[in-house]
């Protein structure tokens, strides 16, 4: 029992130290549409889309234990007062600085109410700039203030494939095929990337042990 307790303490400690921090600054983009935005004059319409400044939002990733510590930034929207014809997109306009790397997100990605990956990278990075675009703007909208909340999340891909944005990870059997044979050994069964697999293995092994002993006793 003490062996398992040690594993638990070790893993919990590792998890605490593995936290990657996300800081979002700037943002709160506000676009006000006036009649002067209708360049065609009477009968005309607003532009179909408007963009924020190229560096409207700045993201910092910190707390990575090394330059090979992998992470991804995901985002989703939650309507506060919104219209179905409006769409919000994000794109990354700078790499930021840091010794790791960054990839993806250089073209606009339309946000939905479900988390989706905007870009990913490795190691801590500062000053990653994002630009927003709202499309579907039209005078057909009622005159009011439309608001939408963007939630950004950083997922530590090195630490775990289980994320807040992917709570069903363990429900998907396809991930188990990614596990190597060595993952199934008892001493490593609490590795953070394969707990359920090992739980199943352990459960089965315990069942087999019980069945074996029971059969043995009966035969006696």
């Amino acid at each position, binding site marked *: 029992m003490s062996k398992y307790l040690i594993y638990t303490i070790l893993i919990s400690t590792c998890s605490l130290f593995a936290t990657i921090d996300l800081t979002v600054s700037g943002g709160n*983009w506000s676009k006000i549409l006036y*009649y002067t935005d209708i360049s065609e004059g009477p009968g005309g*319409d607003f532009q179909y889309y408007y963009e924020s400044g190229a560096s409207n939002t700045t993201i910092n990733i910190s707390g990575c234990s090394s330059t090979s510590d992998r992470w991804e930034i995901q985002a989703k929207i939650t309507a506060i007062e919104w219209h179905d014809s409006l769409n919000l997109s994000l794109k990354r306009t700078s790499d930021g600085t840091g010794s790791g790397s960054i990839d993806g997100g250089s073209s606009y990605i339309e946000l939905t109410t479900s988390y989706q990956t905007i870009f990913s990278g490795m190691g801590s990075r500062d000053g990653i700039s994002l630009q927003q675009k709202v499309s579907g703007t039209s005078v057909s909208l009622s*005159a009011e203030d439309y608001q939408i909340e963007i939630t950004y999340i950083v997922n530590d891909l090195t630490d775990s494939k289980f*994320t807040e944005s992917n709570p069903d990870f363990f429900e998907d059997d396809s991930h188990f095929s990614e596990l190597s044979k060595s993952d199934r050994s008892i001493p490593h069964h609490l590795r953070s990337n394969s707990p359920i697999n090992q*739980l199943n293995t352990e459960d089965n092994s315990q069942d087999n042990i019980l069945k074996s002993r029971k059969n043995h006793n009966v035969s006696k």
Partner: protein
Amino acid sequence: MILLTQTNTQKEKLKGNMKNLILTFMVTLLLAGMAFAASDSETDTTHITVNEVALLGLSGSLADFAFTAPEDPGDTLEAPGPDANTYLQYTSTVISGLSRTISASVDTMPLGVTMNITAGAPGGDGDCGEAVVGGVDFTTSSVSGGDIIQSIGSGQTGSGATDGPNLTYTVDFDATSWDELYVSSSTEVVVTFTLTDMPAR
């Protein structure tokens, strides 16, 4: 001996169950730790504010009418044909539940002359309202006119040369005031279109 074996089996089973319980507890701890440690989130709010817009314009050419003498002596003057070369174009954005109308009025009408302005279907995108059937009539004694488009919400007619409701001007002479019709030089009639906010629809 058999009883002892059964007791041992029960102990083994209990031990196994305890092991399972401990493992489940540890894995639960692990998952809880990962759920809180593997991600971090922040939020940001975007505002798009659409202000009220009320833009109104006309496209097309000025209407020009001239009464002509009848071919046969004794007949009445021949009224000019209608003019339909003008289009009303507008952009409207209203607060939800409100609407607008477009009315037409004239500054004057020559004695003995009547005029009617009727709008065609607005078309366009959004809620461009509806044309008033029959349009608006003007006489020498009635120049204030009335609505020609009603129930305009948020929408736009388009700004192309022939976008928007087509306006048809029809001029005739007033049979009831025939005796007031005199030969004169051209009279200019200024038609004013007004886009007006209305109370809640």
